[in-house]
């Protein structure tokens, strides 16, 4: 039941302002779709949620507590550039998260625990359509297969907060629809909060409970450096699916998250 609060966050790289005045709060168990033009700072924003980058100004709270300033197992991530571990097979990549959690010293499981972890991971691989590739190394997989592997790897840990950076870009529509279903099922089941960056607006609205757009207000070239992107629209999506845990988005929260500007970049 995670609630993320973003308070007046700015991010600058040197002289370049990438993001400015980002303010919002999420209801528990939200599925936030982040959209916006290329280069506007979506990945940067996810990196801040991850604890990998610090806001230059402002702060981010999770359940009212300032964000832990380092990545932690309660926040899963799928990067834009698929990053799985090159020295592990597909199955080992997925199992890794389970092994690390249960075996602090060796980071490896044996016997019955290992079999359980393996079965869970196989299940996960199957649901992203990689059952036949479980003993292949990442370099032997196509781009889309690596991306699915990264998704499986993040999902198997069932994090409280899941950060997805264009996770479905390299997937064909068939697989994509299947993975959508898995993701939604897991989301409903675990009640995690998801932030997903996507360029596909229909996907954004299909999956998200709320769609947030980043964009620059000022676009004249001479202003590009000094002004960063900020939230240009913020729309709640009325979902047909009511989360089984009953944590329906309350009207008050929805009101808070009213659209501010309705024009996309």
């Amino acid at each position: 039941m995670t609630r993320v609060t973003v308070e007046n966050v700015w991010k600058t790289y040197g002289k370049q302002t990438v993001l400015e005045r980002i303010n919002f709060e999420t209801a528990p168990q939200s599925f936030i779709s982040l959209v916006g033009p290329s280069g506007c700072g979506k990945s940067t924003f996810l990196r801040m949620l991850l604890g990998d980058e610090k806001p230059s100004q402002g702060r981010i709270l999770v359940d009212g507590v300032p964000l832990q300033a380092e990545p932690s197992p309660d926040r899963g991530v799928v990067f834009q550039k698929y990053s799985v571990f090159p020295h592990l097979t597909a199955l080992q990549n997925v199992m890794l998260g389970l092994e690390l959690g249960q075996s602090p010293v060796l980071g490896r499981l044996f016997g019955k625990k290992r079999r359980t972890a393996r079965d869970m991971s196989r299940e996960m691989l199957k649901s992203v359509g990689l059952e036949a590739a479980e003993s292949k190394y990442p370099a032997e997989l196509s781009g889309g297969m690596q991306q699915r592997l990264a998704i499986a790897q993040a999902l198997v840990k069932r994090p409280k907060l899941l950060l997805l950076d264009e996770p479905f870009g390299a997937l064909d529509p068939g697989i994509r629809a299947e993975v959508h279903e898995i993701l939604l099922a897991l989301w409903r089941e675990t009640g995690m909060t998801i932030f997903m960056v996507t360029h596909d607006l229909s996907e954004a609205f299909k999956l998200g409970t709320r769609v947030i757009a980043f964009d620059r207000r000022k676009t004249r070239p001479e202003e590009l450096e000094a002004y960063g992107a900020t939230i240009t629209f913020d729309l709640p999506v009325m979902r047909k699916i009511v989360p089984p845990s009953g944590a329906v988005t309350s009207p008050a929260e929805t009101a808070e998250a009213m659209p501010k500007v309705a024009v996309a970049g």
Partner: protein
Amino acid sequence: MRRLINQRPEILSRLLLAASPFFLAFLAYALASQARLAINPTDKLLPAWSTILDAINRMTFVPDLRSGDYLLLLDTMVSLQRLAIGVGLAMLAGFVIGVLQGLIPYVRATLANFTNVVSMIPALAILPILFITFGLGETAKIVLIFVGIVPFIIRDLAQRVEEIPHEQIIKAQTLGASTWQIIIRIVVPQMLPRLIDSVRLSLGPAWLYLIAAEAIAAESGLGYRIFLMRRYLSMDVILPYVAWITFLAFFLDFLLRGLRRVSFGWMYRGHM
């Protein structure tokens, strides 16, 4: 005509091409040797092939008059043992320190400058200190090899660790990895093949230090023999010894490459 970069020689021409520089080198030697021997038939600098063969035979198959040892065998065993211990220890220490230095900011802050500076110390020049500290026996030679190559291995591995994509380390943390787990599950497995590369690169200097140490104080060993033979310019022994060392070095390199290929399959799969 295809571009030069897209033209690949067939297997036969590949063999011929690969052989040609060796052939040229041998030819050059034969000509130079002949020219010198024509002037002075007992010239020792570039002996004739027959003289070299004689010497090889003598060093390999005829037991030494005084000790009864087969000298080439003895020298080889002694030198390889020194090399193996020195390089082995350097490998171990270099790996542990290199990984920690590359991964952990506090260790890096403490050690990076120091290993950098130490790697610049000309180990040959401090030999007397090594001798007096570690004695003239095997220890000093092994220490020279160790001291000579370990800073390089540390630096190289630390650098490689830093080259691991940042995303991987972040990802591992989101999967719940502690620093220790990152080391044993992410960094070490990916660094083992790099360690082999690093050792391959330091084998050259390691031989150099071995030879230098053996030249200064020893009773046997390949470097010892070469420098002893230099006392009376016995190139008929020195040249085969140099060739033999070259072969040994090449063979070790080959073994290491093989080990890397066999143990780290993931590096060789796929086209990416």
